[in-house]
């Protein structure tokens, strides 16, 4: 059984096999344990069929919440399955914070949130900004505290896909990378451990300073996004807006009324980094 605290959430991951747990223990070795030893969420990786543990190992994701018709993943992707399971528990069960599907970096107490469709580059941009000295608050979820409006981080392992792996290996030659997870449903994935400062400061919230909607593969362009459009986009980027009811409404209206938002189109990572740093 493996346990870890990521930002404000404590997890426990159990597995029918040793290997995914050993990989998690290694990659998360600098992270703290759940507060008071009590995890908020439980993830279980279990054999799709009892005999599959021996014959052709395949991992099913379980836990407090499950997706009934999820396809099993081969055991080689056990680490990915564990990460997906942890994300799933956060996405479905988190009630204390408004969850935004966004990456987030912080500098000088000011947080920049980046959200967009899959392939928009939010993980890669966050990792590149981390390599330039920003604190990585998360590559997948940003947590808005309805009580204070502050952003809380969720700096799990950074999930890099396809070309981003090489980009980050070049940017962080001393970075710690997980085992290659090849031919996953999302392509080739490799996890990157956030830097020491991002892990140490994971419990420190930050004031939201800018919301960015990046789009990759287009000529450089910037467009101010008005609050109502930002509101609608962020309800779509939230996994628990409806579940939070009025608390979610208040947290999100407050955020979009107080924080400027910009859509950026970019042809390459260097351009995007310059655009984000000019905004923040």
């Amino acid at each position, binding site marked *: 059984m493996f346990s870890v605290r990521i930002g404000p959430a404590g997890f426990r991951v159990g597995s029918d096999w040793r290997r995914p747990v050993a990989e998690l223990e290694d990659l998360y070795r600098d992270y703290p344990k759940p507060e008071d030893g009590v995890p908020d969420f439980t993830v279980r990786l279990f054999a799709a069929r009892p005999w599959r543990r021996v014959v052709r190992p395949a991992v099913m994701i379980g836990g407090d919440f499950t997706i009934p018709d999820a396809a099993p993943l081969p055991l080689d992707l056990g680490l990915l399955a564990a990460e997906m399971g942890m994300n799933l528990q956060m996405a479905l069960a988190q009630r204390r914070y408004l969850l935004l599907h966004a990456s987030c970096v912080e500098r000088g107490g000011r947080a920049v949130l980046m959200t967009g469709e899959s392939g928009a580059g939010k993980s890669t941009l966050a990792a590149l900004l981390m390599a330039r000295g920003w604190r990585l608050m998360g590559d997948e979820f940003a947590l808005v505290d309805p009580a204070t409006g502050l952003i809380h981080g969720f700096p799990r392992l950074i999930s890099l896909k396809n070309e981003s792996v090489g980009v980050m290996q070049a940017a962080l030659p001393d970075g710690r990378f997980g085992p290659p997870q090849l031919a996953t449903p999302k392509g080739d994935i490799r996890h990157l451990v956030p830097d020491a400062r991002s892990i140490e400061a994971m419990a420190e919230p930050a004031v939201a300073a800018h919301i960015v909607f990046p789009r990759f593969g287009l000529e450089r362009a910037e467009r101010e996004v*008005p609050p*109502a459009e930002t509101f*609608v986009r962020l309800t779509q980027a939230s996994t628990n807006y409806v579940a939070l009811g*009025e608390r979610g*409404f*208040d947290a999100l209206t407050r955020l979009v*009324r107080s924080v400027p938002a910009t859509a950026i189109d970019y042809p390459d990572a260097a351009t995007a980094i310059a655009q984000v740093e000019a905004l923040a």
Partner: protein
Amino acid sequence: MRYRAADRASLRIVPLDVLTAIYHRASGQTHIVEAPVPEILAALGDDALDVGAILDRLARDYALIDPDPAALADRLEELAAAGLVIRT
């Protein structure tokens, strides 16, 4: 047909820009609305009014370009369907 606004305590109305976000506590639904919806809700206040009376109040507070009772009646029916106004 007369209309009144949904119980004020059941609505959270937050202007964002040209659009306004309304949270309807009874249904848990969020509505993004534009003019003249917030203006209609404000004109109704706590009263039950017919289309003519609502139009009079709107004309008093705003310079209406095209004060069309039929269009206002359509908007009121949409709001009634969303639960933001109630037919009485």
